[in-house]
């Protein structure tokens, strides 16, 4: 017997600030905060100033992390606080959608510059020497993808279970889907799920530049970006999901009901298109005309166009919010952030909100939220 799953806490951080109030601005089409200088020619949406001590009180813990893990751990704490669930962490389940952690950029540059001019055999031996002497031992743990979840366990005491999904946007959508499915079937009463992304990173820009999809030069609205339309944004989004009975029993308020979530992965060739995949997912959700759409369009040209075709095929969709326009595209954080925004829309009175996810390369996802009856 499937139990209803509520969203009872949101931890949201982006260039617009932290918390629900700061993000009401995103829903109203706030002008984005953009840094066009630091990573030129690529504009990025930077992080706001965070008082890390509020969520990660031990300096020793902060030192054991790089910015990505700190950001995620911080937002996870915001979500736990928002749900009033500090006392429930021991049995709280955790699924994190993770990317790779920060590399030591200075060391990479120095080694690469030196080795580029050496004969291959000599370069290989020198690489060993430079890495063995140059890598900070603690950096490895600060880089490991599953250590965002590990740090959430250590800092916040979340120990019910811990899983880390990898696979960009889709990983986060499946993290939410599987977390909700486990709760609905009675595997636990409360869970924390989400992801984080730091845009101000040369190593990640290298990966996304390889796709040829990053916007260069001045920031522009998505409609004016052309083929290379990705602007990366620093975002962290965690949600506390809870069965309705678990929330009621402790007197917690549901922010929204997660009415349905569906994910897919089209091969994106021929008939197996992203829009057909998403249309198939939509058919599994009780979507009504007029639902507000929190769009997961990233700005990557092909996926963004596919999403537009999908939305055009929906019967009478309601108002649309292009979150990537104000927050930037935040990969593993994007879908949880859109789901958080959808929750805020429902809180503000909308009868239904649909969060979409269209991965830059692969992955389609839809989630539907409604007010708690």
């Amino acid at each position: 017997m499937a139990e209803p799953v509520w969203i009872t806490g949101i931890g949201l951080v982006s260039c617009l600030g932290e918390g629900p109030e700061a993000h009401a601005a995103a829903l109203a089409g706030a002008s984005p905060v953009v840094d066009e200088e630091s990573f030129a020619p690529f504009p990025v949406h930077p992080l706001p100033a965070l008082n890390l001590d509020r969520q990660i009180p031990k300096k020793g813990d902060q030192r054991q992390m790089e910015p990505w893990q700190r950001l995620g751990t911080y937002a996870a704490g915001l979500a736990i606080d928002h749900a009033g669930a500090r006392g429930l962490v021991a049995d709280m389940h955790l699924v994190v959608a993770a990317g790779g952690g920060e590399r030591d950029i200075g060391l990479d540059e120095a080694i690469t510059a030196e080795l580029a001019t050496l004969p291959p055999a000599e370069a290989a031996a020198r690489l060993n020497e430079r890495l063995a002497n140059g890598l900070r031992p603690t950096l490895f743990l600060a880089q490991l993808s599953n250590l965002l979840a590990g740090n959430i366990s250590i800092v916040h005491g979340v120990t019910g279970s811990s899983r880390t999904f990898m696979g960009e946007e889709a990983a986060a959508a499946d993290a939410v889907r599987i977390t909700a499915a486990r709760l609905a079937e009675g595997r636990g009463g409360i869970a924390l799920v989400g992801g984080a992304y730091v845009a101000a990173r040369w190593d990640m820009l290298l990966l996304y530049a390889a796709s040829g999809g990053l916007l260069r030069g001045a920031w522009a609205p998505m409609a004016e970006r052309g083929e290379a339309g990705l602007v990366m944004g620093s975002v962290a989004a965690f949600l506390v999901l809870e069965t309705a009975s678990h929330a009621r029993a402790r007197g917690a308020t549901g922010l929204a009901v997660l009415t349905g979530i569906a994910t897919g992965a089209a091969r994106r060739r021929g008939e197996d298109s992203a829009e057909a995949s998403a249309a198939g997912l939509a058919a599994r959700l009780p979507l009504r005309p007029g639902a507000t759409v929190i769009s997961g369009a990233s700005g990557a040209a092909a996926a963004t166009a596919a999403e537009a075709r999908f939305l055009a095929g929906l019967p009478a969709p309601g108002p649309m919010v292009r979150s990537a326009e104000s927050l930037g595209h935040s990969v593993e954080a994007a879908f949880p952030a859109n789901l958080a925004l959808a929750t805020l829309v429902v809180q503000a009175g909308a009868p239904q909100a649909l969060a979409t996810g269209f991965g830059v390369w692969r992955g389609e996802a839809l989630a539907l939220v409604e007010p708690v009856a």
Partner: protein
Amino acid sequence: MKDRNHLGRHVVAVTGIGLVTPLGFGVAESWAGLLAGRSGIRRISRFPTEHLRTTIAGEVTLPEEMGREPFTSPERVERMAALAAEEAVAGAGIGAPGRFPGPLFLGMPPVEVEWPQRLVFARQAEAGAALRYSDLIAAASGQQALFENCLFGGIGERLADRFGTSGAPISLTTACATGASSIQLGVEAIQRGEAQAALCIGAEGSVQPEALIRFSLLSALSTRNDEPPRASRPFEKTREGFVMSEGAAALVLESLESARARGATVLGLILGAGERADSFHRTRSNPDGGAIIGAMRAAITDAGLEPGQIDYVNAHGTGTPENDKMETLGMRAVFGDSPPPISSNKSMIGHTLSAAGAIEAVFSLLTIRDQRLPPTINHEAPDPAIPLDVVPNVARDAKVARVLSNSFGFGGQNVCLVVGAAP
């Protein structure tokens, strides 16, 4: 046996298995090597080892990389995962070629752009000593193949395409428990009725300089370089670290009901899975062993069993002083004064990291099939602090119906599986 378990959930059967290990390609070669007590640990041949504290590993060199530059980790992981999956799917006789009737769960290591690629871009950039990331980026721009190769979802997508699995492929990591987590996710999908079958893979291919050095800097690796086959010494007094290794395992899981309906041969059952996260430290367990004990007990409870019904434990058994001490504590806490025998496959194949939980689940099934316990080799000086029957040095026959397989990860992620005989 009924099709539903004590919790009313679908019973999950294993109908196909595949392996790639340092002992060989395929289930037969790997299992024969393991029962013979053979070590797959050798001197590293893939790259020069000057300036390295550890120069040994359990490398898996693929036939197609002979006489060429070694594969990067994502390329190696994908190929080994595909080999193991081909063996498992063929053995299960399930679906049609390129049409596997269920989802893919892929346990794998994080991947990224690697040094050989960085150096190619640096040479193209010709920026000299002033080289910056922006120069590398200029050279890398538009290299779609690199992008798709290094995305975390890339390997899963290509495997999903190749095997025709349904839905979104799930790639995951829980450090050294990854392989067990991939099986657990498949078990849950079948128990929920979300799928009738699942393809669960754990794969690891990270023997390259930077990964080795990172582990080395944590003082996690054995430095017994002079005698590679004797370097991995789980539960032994002179153990001083694990040996990095590579490999892959694949399991075809099905509901017992659907396996029977199509007349498939059932190799064994996944009776239970349990997990518990540790909040103590990034690389060390809480000294009270709470999370390890909790995961072991949760798996046994999930299987509807009592500890006394476990006949043998496939150890996490990495050979680090810390892990083996904590695992011993867990054994005594869960099983009391007369724990069942426990042995470590890692004494022979090393620590296959993201693949370990899946490889060891396959070995657990084979242990039951052949009623024979694989040994813990290199057991020369018993550790008085480890009062366990570790099946020292030679395999032996035993009556085994149920195996507990342990996986404990860096970052505190612990997963245990209970594997049982076919009904």
